Protein backbone atom coordinates (compact mmCIF):
# COMPACT_ATOMS: atom_id res chain seq x y z
CA UNK A 1 0.00 0.00 0.00
CA UNK A 2 2.81 2.35 0.93
CA UNK A 3 4.46 1.51 -2.35
CA UNK A 4 1.35 2.55 -4.21
CA UNK A 5 1.18 5.87 -2.36
CA UNK A 6 4.86 6.40 -2.97
CA UNK A 7 4.35 5.79 -6.67
CA UNK A 8 1.42 8.17 -6.89
CA UNK A 9 2.86 11.04 -4.91
CA UNK A 10 6.60 10.89 -4.94
CA UNK A 11 7.74 8.96 -7.94
CA UNK A 12 8.01 10.19 -11.46
CA UNK A 13 7.17 8.04 -14.44
CA UNK A 14 8.38 8.02 -18.01
CA UNK A 15 8.61 5.87 -21.13
CA UNK A 16 12.12 4.50 -21.73
CA UNK A 17 13.12 3.34 -25.20
CA UNK A 18 16.19 1.14 -24.91
CA UNK A 19 17.93 0.02 -28.09
CA UNK A 20 18.77 1.69 -31.37
CA UNK A 21 18.11 2.33 -35.02
CA UNK A 22 20.90 1.68 -37.47
CA UNK A 23 21.18 1.23 -41.21
CA UNK A 24 19.50 -2.15 -41.04
CA UNK A 25 16.40 -1.29 -39.02
CA UNK A 26 14.89 -0.28 -35.66
CA UNK A 27 15.26 -2.36 -32.52
CA UNK A 28 13.81 -1.23 -29.19
CA UNK A 29 12.63 -2.49 -25.83
CA UNK A 30 10.07 -0.02 -24.54
CA UNK A 31 9.53 0.19 -20.80
CA UNK A 32 6.74 2.13 -19.11
CA UNK A 33 8.13 3.02 -15.69
CA UNK A 34 4.64 3.85 -14.47
CA UNK A 35 3.41 0.29 -15.02
CA UNK A 36 6.64 -1.42 -14.01
CA UNK A 37 6.61 -2.70 -10.43
CA UNK A 38 10.22 -3.85 -10.41
CA UNK A 39 9.09 -7.43 -9.76
CA UNK A 40 11.96 -8.74 -11.90
CA UNK A 41 10.03 -11.61 -13.54
CA UNK A 42 11.15 -10.40 -16.98
CA UNK A 43 14.77 -10.34 -15.85
CA UNK A 44 14.55 -14.04 -14.98
CA UNK A 45 12.47 -14.99 -18.01
CA UNK A 46 14.90 -13.58 -20.56
CA UNK A 47 17.06 -16.37 -22.00
CA UNK A 48 19.87 -13.99 -22.89
CA UNK A 49 20.07 -11.78 -19.80
CA UNK A 50 19.09 -8.57 -21.58
CA UNK A 51 17.36 -7.04 -18.56
CA UNK A 52 18.40 -6.12 -15.05
CA UNK A 53 16.81 -4.73 -11.89
CA UNK A 54 17.63 -1.10 -11.40
CA UNK A 55 17.02 1.92 -9.17
CA UNK A 56 16.48 4.91 -11.40
CA UNK A 57 17.39 8.58 -10.94
CA UNK A 58 14.08 9.17 -9.19
CA UNK A 59 14.81 6.33 -6.73
CA UNK A 60 12.23 3.95 -8.21
CA UNK A 61 12.92 0.21 -8.34
CA UNK A 62 12.24 -0.78 -11.88
CA UNK A 63 13.93 -2.69 -14.66
CA UNK A 64 16.18 -1.67 -17.52
CA UNK A 65 18.16 -3.09 -20.41
CA UNK A 66 21.79 -3.66 -19.44
CA UNK A 67 24.30 -1.34 -21.03
CA UNK A 68 25.94 -4.17 -22.95
CA UNK A 69 22.70 -5.50 -24.39
CA UNK A 70 21.23 -2.13 -25.33
CA UNK A 71 23.57 -2.24 -28.30
CA UNK A 72 22.56 -5.68 -29.57
CA UNK A 73 18.76 -5.80 -29.28
CA UNK A 74 18.53 -7.02 -32.88
CA UNK A 75 20.65 -10.04 -32.10
CA UNK A 76 19.56 -10.75 -28.54
CA UNK A 77 15.80 -10.28 -29.01
CA UNK A 78 15.49 -11.33 -32.66
CA UNK A 79 15.21 -15.04 -31.88
CA UNK A 80 12.13 -14.39 -29.67
CA UNK A 81 10.44 -12.96 -32.76
CA UNK A 82 11.18 -15.59 -35.41
CA UNK A 83 10.65 -14.71 -39.04
CA UNK A 84 7.55 -16.50 -40.25
CA UNK A 85 6.88 -17.93 -36.82
CA UNK A 86 4.88 -17.23 -33.69
CA UNK A 87 5.96 -14.26 -31.59
CA UNK A 88 7.43 -15.77 -28.45
CA UNK A 89 8.71 -12.85 -26.39
CA UNK A 90 9.39 -14.21 -22.90
CA UNK A 91 9.68 -10.90 -21.07
CA UNK A 92 6.36 -9.66 -22.49
CA UNK A 93 4.65 -12.94 -21.56
CA UNK A 94 5.56 -12.84 -17.88
CA UNK A 95 4.86 -9.13 -17.38
CA UNK A 96 1.41 -8.82 -15.76
CA UNK A 97 1.07 -5.01 -15.94
CA UNK A 98 2.24 -5.10 -19.59
CA UNK A 99 5.00 -2.62 -18.88
CA UNK A 100 7.46 -4.02 -21.42
CA UNK A 101 7.30 -4.28 -25.22
CA UNK A 102 9.90 -5.54 -27.69
CA UNK A 103 9.93 -4.11 -31.20
CA UNK A 104 12.14 -5.55 -33.96
CA UNK A 105 11.94 -4.12 -37.49
CA UNK A 106 14.53 -5.24 -40.02
CA UNK A 107 14.32 -3.22 -43.25
CA UNK A 108 13.26 -5.40 -46.14
CA UNK A 109 12.05 -8.14 -43.82
CA UNK A 110 9.64 -7.03 -41.10
Amino acid sequence: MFNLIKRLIISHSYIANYGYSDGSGDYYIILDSDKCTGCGKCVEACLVGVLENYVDDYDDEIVKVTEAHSKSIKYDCGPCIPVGGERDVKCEQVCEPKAITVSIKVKGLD
Partner: protein
Amino acid sequence: MIIAGIDVGAVATKAVILNDGKIIGKGMATTGFEREEAVEAALAEAIKNAGISRGDIEKVGATGAGEAVEFADKRFEDVVADGAGANFLFPQAKTVIDVGGEEARGMRIDETGRVVDFALNERCAAGAGAFVEAMARALEVKTEEMGELSLQSDKDIEINAQCTIFAESEVVSQIHLKTSKADIARAVHEGIATRVVSMVRRSGVEGEVALIGGVAYNPGFVARIKEHLGKELLISEDPQIVGAIGAAVLAVGPEVEFKAPEAKLDTEKEWR
Protein backbone atom coordinates in the same frame (compact mmCIF):
# COMPACT_ATOMS: atom_id res chain seq x y z
CA MET B 1 23.58 -26.68 -72.37
CA ILE B 2 25.88 -23.78 -71.52
CA ILE B 3 24.54 -21.30 -69.01
CA ALA B 4 26.03 -18.38 -67.09
CA GLY B 5 25.29 -16.87 -63.71
CA ILE B 6 26.44 -13.43 -62.59
CA ASP B 7 26.28 -12.19 -59.00
CA VAL B 8 26.90 -8.44 -58.68
CA GLY B 9 27.88 -8.06 -55.05
CA ALA B 10 28.59 -4.79 -53.27
CA VAL B 11 32.31 -5.58 -53.20
CA ALA B 12 32.91 -8.29 -55.82
CA THR B 13 31.18 -9.36 -59.03
CA LYS B 14 31.29 -13.10 -59.69
CA ALA B 15 30.59 -14.92 -62.93
CA VAL B 16 30.26 -18.67 -63.40
CA ILE B 17 29.68 -20.81 -66.49
CA LEU B 18 28.13 -24.25 -66.38
CA ASN B 19 27.89 -26.87 -69.09
CA ASP B 20 25.34 -29.58 -68.45
CA GLY B 21 25.63 -29.12 -64.73
CA LYS B 22 29.38 -28.87 -64.50
CA ILE B 23 31.24 -25.68 -63.69
CA ILE B 24 33.56 -25.03 -66.62
CA GLY B 25 34.66 -21.49 -65.91
CA LYS B 26 34.55 -18.77 -63.29
CA GLY B 27 35.65 -15.16 -63.05
CA MET B 28 35.69 -12.35 -60.56
CA ALA B 29 36.14 -8.57 -60.64
CA THR B 30 35.98 -5.82 -58.03
CA THR B 31 32.58 -4.20 -58.41
CA GLY B 32 33.79 -0.67 -57.70
CA PHE B 33 31.83 2.29 -59.01
CA GLU B 34 31.42 1.04 -62.61
CA ARG B 35 29.28 -2.05 -62.16
CA GLU B 36 28.69 -2.77 -65.85
CA GLU B 37 32.44 -2.83 -66.42
CA ALA B 38 32.89 -5.27 -63.53
CA VAL B 39 30.21 -7.52 -65.02
CA GLU B 40 31.99 -7.58 -68.38
CA ALA B 41 35.37 -8.25 -66.78
CA ALA B 42 34.12 -11.09 -64.59
CA LEU B 43 32.24 -12.70 -67.48
CA ALA B 44 35.19 -12.34 -69.82
CA GLU B 45 37.44 -14.14 -67.32
CA ALA B 46 34.91 -16.94 -66.93
CA ILE B 47 34.52 -17.33 -70.69
CA LYS B 48 38.29 -17.48 -71.10
CA ASN B 49 38.60 -20.14 -68.38
CA ALA B 50 35.79 -22.12 -69.94
CA GLY B 51 37.44 -22.04 -73.34
CA ILE B 52 34.17 -21.06 -75.04
CA SER B 53 32.96 -17.99 -76.83
CA ARG B 54 30.34 -15.54 -75.66
CA GLY B 55 27.86 -16.73 -78.24
CA ASP B 56 27.92 -20.26 -76.79
CA ILE B 57 26.07 -19.11 -73.70
CA GLU B 58 22.39 -19.95 -74.02
CA LYS B 59 20.95 -18.43 -70.88
CA VAL B 60 22.18 -15.87 -68.35
CA GLY B 61 20.86 -15.50 -64.83
CA ALA B 62 21.77 -12.57 -62.57
CA THR B 63 21.56 -11.79 -58.89
CA GLY B 64 22.85 -9.15 -56.46
CA ALA B 65 22.62 -5.81 -58.25
CA GLY B 66 21.20 -7.78 -61.18
CA GLU B 67 20.10 -4.65 -63.01
CA ALA B 68 23.78 -4.10 -63.84
CA VAL B 69 23.62 -7.22 -66.03
CA GLU B 70 21.78 -5.68 -68.96
CA PHE B 71 21.80 -8.85 -71.04
CA ALA B 72 20.44 -11.15 -68.31
CA ASP B 73 17.54 -13.38 -69.24
CA LYS B 74 16.32 -13.53 -65.70
CA ARG B 75 17.17 -11.76 -62.44
CA PHE B 76 16.76 -13.26 -58.99
CA GLU B 77 16.75 -12.01 -55.40
CA ASP B 78 19.94 -12.75 -53.46
CA VAL B 79 18.29 -15.22 -51.10
CA VAL B 80 16.62 -17.09 -53.94
CA ALA B 81 19.89 -17.49 -55.83
CA ASP B 82 21.72 -18.44 -52.62
CA GLY B 83 19.18 -21.13 -51.87
CA ALA B 84 19.34 -22.58 -55.36
CA GLY B 85 23.14 -22.46 -55.48
CA ALA B 86 23.58 -24.08 -52.07
CA ASN B 87 21.05 -26.76 -52.92
CA PHE B 88 22.83 -27.43 -56.21
CA LEU B 89 26.13 -28.06 -54.44
CA PHE B 90 24.77 -29.60 -51.27
CA PRO B 91 21.35 -31.21 -51.75
CA GLN B 92 21.42 -32.18 -48.07
CA ALA B 93 21.66 -28.57 -46.84
CA LYS B 94 18.63 -27.31 -44.93
CA THR B 95 20.14 -24.04 -43.68
CA VAL B 96 22.27 -21.60 -45.66
CA ILE B 97 24.40 -18.79 -44.27
CA ASP B 98 25.74 -16.27 -46.80
CA VAL B 99 28.29 -13.75 -45.50
CA GLY B 100 29.49 -11.28 -48.11
CA GLY B 101 31.43 -8.04 -48.11
CA GLU B 102 28.55 -5.75 -47.18
CA GLU B 103 25.60 -8.03 -46.51
CA ALA B 104 24.88 -11.27 -44.73
CA ARG B 105 21.84 -13.53 -44.95
CA GLY B 106 20.55 -16.63 -43.22
CA MET B 107 17.90 -18.88 -44.69
CA ARG B 108 16.16 -22.22 -44.35
CA ILE B 109 15.59 -24.04 -47.61
CA ASP B 110 13.58 -27.06 -48.64
CA GLU B 111 14.89 -30.06 -50.58
CA THR B 112 14.50 -28.23 -53.90
CA GLY B 113 16.49 -25.23 -52.70
CA ARG B 114 13.45 -23.03 -52.33
CA VAL B 115 13.72 -20.51 -49.47
CA VAL B 116 11.32 -21.17 -46.60
CA ASP B 117 12.34 -18.30 -44.30
CA PHE B 118 15.20 -15.86 -44.31
CA ALA B 119 16.84 -13.24 -42.09
CA LEU B 120 19.09 -10.33 -43.07
CA ASN B 121 22.09 -8.31 -41.99
CA GLU B 122 22.09 -5.43 -44.43
CA ARG B 123 23.04 -1.75 -44.52
CA CYS B 124 25.23 -2.01 -41.44
CA ALA B 125 28.92 -2.71 -41.80
CA ALA B 126 29.13 -4.52 -38.47
CA GLY B 127 26.95 -7.31 -39.80
CA ALA B 128 29.13 -8.46 -42.69
CA GLY B 129 32.66 -8.75 -44.07
CA ALA B 130 33.22 -4.98 -44.03
CA PHE B 131 33.66 -5.29 -40.25
CA VAL B 132 36.63 -7.64 -40.58
CA GLU B 133 38.14 -5.47 -43.28
CA ALA B 134 37.88 -2.30 -41.18
CA MET B 135 39.41 -3.98 -38.11
CA ALA B 136 42.21 -5.35 -40.30
CA ARG B 137 43.03 -1.74 -41.24
CA ALA B 138 43.00 -0.71 -37.58
CA LEU B 139 45.36 -3.59 -36.78
CA GLU B 140 47.50 -2.80 -39.81
CA VAL B 141 47.13 -6.35 -41.05
CA LYS B 142 45.99 -7.60 -44.47
CA THR B 143 42.33 -8.61 -44.51
CA GLU B 144 43.20 -12.04 -45.83
CA GLU B 145 45.59 -12.59 -42.92
CA MET B 146 43.01 -11.81 -40.21
CA GLY B 147 41.64 -15.33 -40.02
CA GLU B 148 44.95 -17.08 -39.44
CA LEU B 149 46.00 -14.37 -36.98
CA SER B 150 42.86 -14.89 -34.92
CA LEU B 151 43.49 -18.62 -34.74
CA GLN B 152 46.78 -17.96 -32.97
CA SER B 153 44.87 -16.80 -29.91
CA ASP B 154 42.94 -18.76 -27.33
CA LYS B 155 42.15 -15.80 -25.08
CA ASP B 156 38.80 -14.07 -25.17
CA ILE B 157 38.72 -10.31 -24.77
CA GLU B 158 35.72 -8.03 -25.09
CA ILE B 159 34.92 -5.73 -27.94
CA ASN B 160 31.80 -4.00 -26.62
CA ALA B 161 31.08 -1.86 -29.65
CA GLN B 162 28.53 -3.18 -32.12
CA CYS B 163 29.34 -0.51 -34.69
CA THR B 164 32.33 -0.69 -37.02
CA ILE B 165 33.28 2.95 -36.40
CA PHE B 166 33.16 2.56 -32.60
CA ALA B 167 34.88 -0.83 -32.74
CA GLU B 168 37.77 0.72 -34.64
CA SER B 169 38.31 3.10 -31.72
CA GLU B 170 38.11 0.21 -29.27
CA VAL B 171 40.68 -1.78 -31.23
CA VAL B 172 43.01 1.23 -31.24
CA SER B 173 42.59 1.53 -27.45
CA GLN B 174 43.39 -2.17 -27.07
CA ILE B 175 46.51 -1.72 -29.17
CA HIS B 176 47.57 1.13 -26.84
CA LEU B 177 47.01 -1.22 -23.89
CA LYS B 178 49.45 -3.61 -25.58
CA THR B 179 46.84 -6.34 -26.15
CA SER B 180 48.19 -8.83 -28.68
CA LYS B 181 46.94 -8.46 -32.23
CA ALA B 182 46.02 -12.15 -32.26
CA ASP B 183 43.74 -11.72 -29.24
CA ILE B 184 42.12 -8.66 -30.81
CA ALA B 185 41.65 -10.52 -34.10
CA ARG B 186 39.99 -13.37 -32.23
CA ALA B 187 37.57 -10.92 -30.60
CA VAL B 188 36.83 -9.36 -33.98
CA HIS B 189 35.86 -12.73 -35.43
CA GLU B 190 33.86 -13.59 -32.31
CA GLY B 191 31.93 -10.35 -32.75
CA ILE B 192 31.00 -10.86 -36.37
CA ALA B 193 30.25 -14.56 -35.86
CA THR B 194 27.92 -13.77 -32.94
CA ARG B 195 26.04 -11.24 -35.02
CA VAL B 196 25.73 -13.59 -38.00
CA VAL B 197 24.59 -16.59 -35.93
CA SER B 198 22.07 -14.52 -33.95
CA MET B 199 20.69 -13.21 -37.21
CA VAL B 200 20.37 -16.73 -38.66
CA ARG B 201 18.59 -17.96 -35.54
CA ARG B 202 15.72 -15.68 -36.43
CA SER B 203 14.96 -17.71 -39.54
CA GLY B 204 16.00 -20.89 -37.80
CA VAL B 205 18.93 -23.30 -37.88
CA GLU B 206 17.90 -26.78 -38.99
CA GLY B 207 19.70 -29.82 -40.24
CA GLU B 208 22.89 -29.41 -42.23
CA VAL B 209 24.26 -25.93 -42.61
CA ALA B 210 25.99 -24.60 -45.73
CA LEU B 211 28.24 -21.54 -45.43
CA ILE B 212 28.71 -19.44 -48.56
CA GLY B 213 29.95 -15.99 -49.52
CA GLY B 214 33.39 -14.40 -49.48
CA VAL B 215 33.83 -14.45 -45.70
CA ALA B 216 33.64 -18.27 -45.78
CA TYR B 217 37.27 -18.15 -46.92
CA ASN B 218 38.19 -16.79 -43.52
CA PRO B 219 39.28 -19.72 -41.31
CA GLY B 220 38.98 -17.65 -38.14
CA PHE B 221 35.38 -16.80 -38.94
CA VAL B 222 34.57 -20.40 -39.89
CA ALA B 223 36.00 -21.64 -36.59
CA ARG B 224 33.87 -19.23 -34.53
CA ILE B 225 30.68 -20.07 -36.48
CA LYS B 226 31.25 -23.79 -36.00
CA GLU B 227 31.64 -23.24 -32.28
CA HIS B 228 28.51 -21.11 -31.97
CA LEU B 229 26.39 -23.57 -33.95
CA GLY B 230 28.01 -26.69 -32.53
CA LYS B 231 27.88 -28.14 -36.02
CA GLU B 232 30.09 -28.98 -38.94
CA LEU B 233 29.62 -26.75 -41.95
CA LEU B 234 29.21 -27.53 -45.63
CA ILE B 235 31.66 -25.25 -47.43
CA SER B 236 32.44 -25.64 -51.12
CA GLU B 237 35.78 -25.15 -52.81
CA ASP B 238 34.74 -21.69 -53.93
CA PRO B 239 32.10 -20.33 -51.57
CA GLN B 240 32.03 -16.92 -53.22
CA ILE B 241 30.47 -18.09 -56.47
CA VAL B 242 27.52 -19.97 -55.01
CA GLY B 243 25.08 -17.13 -55.60
CA ALA B 244 26.16 -16.94 -59.23
CA ILE B 245 25.72 -20.72 -59.58
CA GLY B 246 22.21 -20.39 -58.22
CA ALA B 247 21.40 -17.59 -60.66
CA ALA B 248 22.62 -19.75 -63.56
CA VAL B 249 20.68 -22.82 -62.47
CA LEU B 250 17.50 -20.84 -61.94
CA ALA B 251 17.80 -19.12 -65.31
CA VAL B 252 16.89 -22.32 -67.07
CA GLY B 253 14.17 -23.22 -64.62
CA PRO B 254 12.93 -26.57 -63.38
CA GLU B 255 12.47 -28.07 -66.83
CA VAL B 256 16.19 -28.78 -67.00
CA GLU B 257 17.48 -31.21 -64.40
CA PHE B 258 21.04 -31.12 -63.29
CA LYS B 259 22.94 -33.83 -61.56
CA ALA B 260 24.80 -31.98 -58.85
CA PRO B 261 28.52 -32.63 -58.94
CA GLU B 262 30.40 -34.04 -55.98
CA ALA B 263 30.79 -30.86 -53.97
CA LYS B 264 34.26 -30.63 -52.51
CA LEU B 265 34.39 -29.76 -48.86
CA ASP B 266 36.54 -27.21 -47.14
CA THR B 267 40.02 -28.53 -46.44
CA GLU B 268 43.09 -26.45 -47.11
CA LYS B 269 41.86 -23.19 -48.57
CA GLU B 270 43.93 -20.64 -50.38
CA TRP B 271 42.80 -17.14 -49.63
CA ARG B 272 41.55 -15.55 -52.81
